[in-house]
């Protein structure tokens, strides 16, 4: 099953890149012109995202460098540890919604230090894999179309991150057992 799913992952992109123009050609679409025409929008969209992402990345980066992130982690540590969350994993609760590359680096470090098959390593990997970087997704998706008022979208995203975090910890305890 795993091997099958991984094969699907590898094949999908090249298959799509080949299939879409082929199908379009049968429908008598001037494929190359059509491609270039649409591709122009891609550049504009990427440029439109820059101010949004620069603003967010600056704030996140300052937040981590100032030590505020560590203080926040320290403040919730006793409570979360009582709930069965290993102390080493706690920074992820705040890193994951803020920065995808930052939390991936943190997870990689945890796996290196504690081993991939340790409970900490498994929990960290599960947390990283089960949610997306909410603030980044919001910035990019809404920034690309110029939405200024996100309304309740951020609350929903952060709520689901919190649920995902605890679900990941619980799932690992349940599947990989107490140590």
């Amino acid at each position, binding site marked *: 099953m795993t091997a099958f799913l991984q094969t699907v992952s590898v094949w999908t992109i090249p298959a799509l890149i080949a299939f879409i123009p082929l199908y379009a050609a049968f429908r008598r*679409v001037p494929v190359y012109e059509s491609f270039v025409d649409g591709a122009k929008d891609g550049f504009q969209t990427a440029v439109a995202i820059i101010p949004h992402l620069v603003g967010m990345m600056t704030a996140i*980066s300052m937040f981590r460098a100032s030590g*505020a992130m560590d203080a926040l982690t320290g403040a919730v540590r006793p409570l979360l540890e009582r709930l069965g969350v290993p102390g080493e994993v706690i920074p992820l609760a705040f890193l994951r*919604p803020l920065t995808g590359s930052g939390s991936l680096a943190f997870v990689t470090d945890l796996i290196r230090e504690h081993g991939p098959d340790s409970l900490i390593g498994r929990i960290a990997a599960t947390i990283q894999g*089960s949610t997306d970087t909410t603030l980044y997704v919001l910035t*990019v998706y*809404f920034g690309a179309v110029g939405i200024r008022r*996100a309304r309740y979208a951020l609350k929903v*995203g952060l709520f689901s991150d919190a*649920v995902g975090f605890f679900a990941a910890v619980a799932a690992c305890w349940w599947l990989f057992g107490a140590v």
Partner: protein
Amino acid sequence: MVNWIWLGMIVISFWFAALTGRMEEVTAAAFSGAQTGVTVCLGLIGILVLWMGLMRVAEDAGLVQKLAVLIGPAVRWLFPDVPRNHPAMGYILSNLSANLLGLGNAATPMGIRAMQELQKLNPDPRTATPAMCTLLALNTASITLVPTTLIAIRLQFGSQNPAEIIGSTLLATAIATGAAIAADRWYRRRTGAPPYSAEPARKRPATFDHSAGSAEAPGRG
């Protein structure tokens, strides 16, 4: 709410830096953070240009519309205010399938295309519609069948069974997605009153001016 989080992070950082004497580090971090923002966007350009081009081909061939017609009842239930045959539906489905397959690089441009189509249905282009919030909720929870990157990392550090986290990840992501959908529904029902429903939307452009925008969103949204 985004405004407050952004301002909060910056002000708290300044305060902490003043207390702990890390002003220099914070200065460096501010600039490197800005740099990262640009670098990430530059990295997105290639992928966005490629997929937006390909999707234009798919659109011209009628594939996106076809996908929209084939959409299952689940997606229609999630996006009740998007017309059934609207191209936005096709892009939403492409975006969700790409997420499911773990093709993050393909999912982002498709999601942005879906947002652009949803924007065409939006009476107030500066405020997110419920459909946009739902799409965002699904993407932040991101249901993934195979967490490829993490399996690769586990393999690299000598795991006995690198793929064994698929089960726990799938369980956690399903619960997180369920929570996202439930929360989204709850907020949609609570705030889904006009002018965001389809009916008064048509009247809106006539009254839309600078002051109209801020009056209807008393929360921090």
